[in-house]
């Protein structure tokens, strides 16, 4: 069973609910938190890797709570019109999702490896890495 990488966005009420506990306990999912920005009484986001047969059920549970669930590799998009393939992003991407192909020195983006840390969106000199959440 291959892991599913998802981005969750939730409003102020949901931040107080123990959603990770529910995903593990009720849906028997293996949950790996890749990134989380959760503050009580504020809007939050979380990037999860979930594995398990009941993953769709778990995601439905989240949606019913009003959590926006999105596939991770739809989150960060490279604007190919803007990218000049300089490679500045490849030195700071923590997972190697942005990497250089050699010897062509062309920059590749593997969305499956992206953990939405957003570093590239700040560092890209051309503003080519865009957030579509």
């Amino acid at each position: 069973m291959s892991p599913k990488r998802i981005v969750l966005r939730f409003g102020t009420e949901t931040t107080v609910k123990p959603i990770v506990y529910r995903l593990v306990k009720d849906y028997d999912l293996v949950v790996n938190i890749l990134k989380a920005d959760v503050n009580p009484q504020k809007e939050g986001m979380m990037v999860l890797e979930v594995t398990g047969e009941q993953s769709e059920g778990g995601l439905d549970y989240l949606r019913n709570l009003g959590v926006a669930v999105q596939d991770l590799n739809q989150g960060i998009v490279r604007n190919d019109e803007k990218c000049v393939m300089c490679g500045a992003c490849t030195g700071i991407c923590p997972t190697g999702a942005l990497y250089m192909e050699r010897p062509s020195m062309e920059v590749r983006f593997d969305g499956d490896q992206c953990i939405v840390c957003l570093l590239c969106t700040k560092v890209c000199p051309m503003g080519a890495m865009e957030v579509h959440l």
Partner: protein
Amino acid sequence: MSVEKTYAEINAKIKAGRAVVVTAEELITLVEEKGLSKAAQEVDVVTTGTFAPMCSSGVFLSLGHTKPRMKMQKVWLNGVAAYTGIAAVDVYLGAAELPDDDPLNSKYPGEFRYGGGHVIQDLVARKPIKLKALAYGTDCYPRRNLETTITLDEINEAIMYNPRNAYQNYNCAVNLTDHTVYTYMGMLKPHLGNANYSTSGQLSPLLKDPYFKTIGVGTKIFLGGGVGYVAWNGTQHFPSIMDVPGQEHSSAGGTLAVTGDLKQMSPRWLVGTSFLGYGATLSVGIGVPIPILNEEIAKYAALKDDELFASVVDYGEAYPSFTPGNLGYVSYADLKSGKIRVNGKEIITAPLSSMPRAREIAATLKAWIQKGEFLLTEPVKNLPSPTDDIVIHSLKEA
């Protein structure tokens, strides 16, 4: 028998469609296959290319007169100030200029997503640009205020003049401190967390002519997607041969001032650029043709990434404090491999200069020459070379 060719002979071959033109990378392969002498005999022109951020760039704009006339004293283009200390409706827009209301580094690190370089790209992309001007009013130029929109085709002149482009070589930047620094060489993580470099190495124009044997005042070049010329040496033109053991021709320090008509350039080759925590600038595409007049020139043009080196410099402490020295030298072959070793530690490297774009420039210039559209120009004046021993000054404080 050593080969000797003249500019006139090479141009005659270009006009006849018989010139042999190769990119600097193709020349390297050719020399490996056939040897230097044979390659120098066969090849007439070698094309180079670089596409990287070049802050000392900008455009002179002559906006056209208003009715009544106006001697513009302050001018903003899309909110970015242009220099007006020249004639009435002439301005100079610099690539690194920022909007008056930019938060700069007050919210550190600042993003600098729009500046002079971006205005230049918008202008050359034929987008409408908001022009705002103020003046104090004179008898001959009474108008004091103007707000309108301009486009590149509606203004009289747009002349790119870049005082320092095509840096021959550049430092490989690292950070020895314990905190992240945001520099014009990009984001540098603490404790040698990464290394950034910024030339196209074996394709880079001035690395292929270390003694300025062919590139001089008047050399016709690829500039911003159009045709331009070398106007003079660039500012801070301090050509030298680096002190790398066993390497005789790994050069550094040379720069070019270049100029050309912005109206025939393209937004693909003039790209507004932002460095987190540093500022805005312009990435410029430049390609320089090197005529193979003799075997010596061919030898330099065929220098490979493993014969060309960069100094490794600490941008955490040494560079900002202007402390001389470096952490050693690394070859462009190593830099492009993705890993180098500094102070015994393996570090990942990343370029700020686009190799795919540099290759595209060298290939484009090659095609122009092959089609007979682009003839070579002999310099009307040579540029200072490493043998001229230029003295470098720094500012004195009383």
